[in-house]
């Protein structure tokens, strides 16, 4: 069950990441065209960069599901299969701890409870907490930056989902990291 959710979510993540890769390409091309015509759109660069950040975190989370991240497999490759199973489980624990820590960091950063207590009012919130996250603007897009930062929540949840799945699942014999 958990595996199915994790795998379905990974598919959505990859689909979105691929779509964002399309957006990046089109945005940069748009930039080239408008600049050659002497009429550069100043907000395109920033939007392309945010699209890339979203693509990266979505893709990185999906990589945790597929175990395709770059890693040094020197030791697991030479030890006996039994030891390898133990090592891979330890890796799962570390990745899970990392994902849980990301959730905790997002919580400390976005302070959702305090924000709710302030009635979702950015001014009251930052008066109470000195946390200016909800007031920070983007440079050129005219949108608040926290909208783009929410990808860190998506990433933290995705990573937690995928790593919980691996943690609870028996190590598959061929699942080399």
């Amino acid at each position, binding site marked *: 069950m958990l595996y199915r959710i994790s795998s379905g979510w990974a598919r959505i993540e*990859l*689909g979105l*990441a*691929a*779509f*964002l*890769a*399309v957006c*990046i*390409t089109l945005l*940069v*091309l748009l*930039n*080239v065209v408008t*600049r050659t015509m002497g009429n550069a759109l100043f907000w395109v*660069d920033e939007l392309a*960069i945010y699209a*890339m*950040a979203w*693509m*990266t*975190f*979505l*893709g*990185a989370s*999906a*990589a*945790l599901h597929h175990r*395709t*991240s*770059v*890693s*040094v*497999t*020197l*030791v*697991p*490759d030479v030890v006996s299969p039994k030891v390898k199973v133990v*090592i*891979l489980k*330890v*890796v799962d624990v*570390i*990745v899970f*701890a*990392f994902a849980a*820590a*990301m959730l*905790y*960091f*997002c919580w*400390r*950063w976005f302070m959702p409870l305090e924000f709710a207590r302030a009635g979702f009012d950015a001014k009251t919130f930052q008066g109470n907490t000195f*946390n200016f996250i909800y007031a920070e603007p983007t440079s050129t897009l005219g949108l608040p930056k926290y909208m*783009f*930062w929410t*990808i*860190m929540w998506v990433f*933290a949840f995705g990573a937690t989902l995928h790593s919980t799945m691996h943690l609870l699942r028996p190590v598959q014999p061929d699942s080399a*990291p």
Partner: protein
Amino acid sequence: MSPIVFLAALFLSVPVAIVLIATSIWYIWESGNIVLYDSFAQKMFGGLENYGLLAIPLFMLTGELMNEGGMTKRLINMARVFVGGFRGGLAYINLLANMFMAAIIGSATAQIAVMSRAMVPAMEDEGYDRGFAAASTAAGGLLAPVIPPSMMFVIFGVLAQVPISEMFIAGIIPGILLTLSFALVITIIGWRQQFPKGTWMTGSEAIQAVLYAVPALLIPVAIIGGIVLGIATPTESAAIASLIAFIVGWLVYGELKPTHLAEMFKRTAVNASMIIFMIAAASVFGWVIIYEELPQKLAGLITSVTSDPFMFFLIVNLSLLLVGMVIDGIAAIILITPILLPIAVGNYDISPHQFGVVICLNLVLGLLTPPVGIGLYIASSMSETSPGAILKALWPFLLAVTIVLILLSYFADLSTMLI
């Protein structure tokens, strides 16, 4: 404790990016600077807010489009026109085609995969030893990270805050030097082994081969021309190159199917996010490097051994050869640059361009050396040759790279002349 956490996690095969993040989390907790956790996620996101990084997915996309679009075989055919008639012609064709490909693809592993499939069977049919065929193809892949565009230069440029276009230009002479040194290796081996004789194309065949390749050649011309002439940024030229690759593959060669685009964008997203995520991780790891004053401490150690920049380079080269054997080249660049660059520039007055060229070429060598030589394994599986057989034929090429590395370390001008 942090170094132990780092090494343990790394060798247990925790993904490299997560090793960096976990070490940073541990370090912050140990040093009691818990307030840094508040901006931890923000720092990771911020590490990606860099215009130059956009070039990574775009160059990857260009490579994907080029593979599907039938450009590889046209480029190989064109290389045949120029060097096909020499004894050992196919070996030179392989090298020259690799040089063209390096000007389009930015990644050594991608290039080795494509070229092994294309060249090794052809060389074997003409009577070359399969191990040598695979070895010369794998060595040709080493041109990818030196000849522009280069994924490693993009990453180094971002980390070192050197304009990526300057890094690309710095790679031109070293790339040519490397190609010449490989040509020399092929010539020497050819004398001893009596390579099969090549045949020159007839005039009309040659003209046809060149004409067919011209559209594909627009890509390196757009990339290198745009950057050298300062018309386009590396990011923009990457986007233009992917557009040309798409149009040429689809409309001119008629081999690229627009229905495959979704799959290509997906592969691009997967591969690009793997690399860019490591950069996000490296930005929090930067805290550890700065607070621990790693460059200063290491500088103290090295400057007590030597004050000569060339000796420093030799030490760095030797250590990085070992690092490259274990860690993937791009991961190693991300890890090493923030630590060693300040020493090279600050204590030894080395130009960041020269330093970048040397360490990128050095670390990519690790692709071809066991125990973790991904490039070697790719060449081996694509060409159905054992890694051992490839290695046996590969060592003269590795020796050539080593000599080029020493030259590049000694003569700064080789990297900085054109900038």
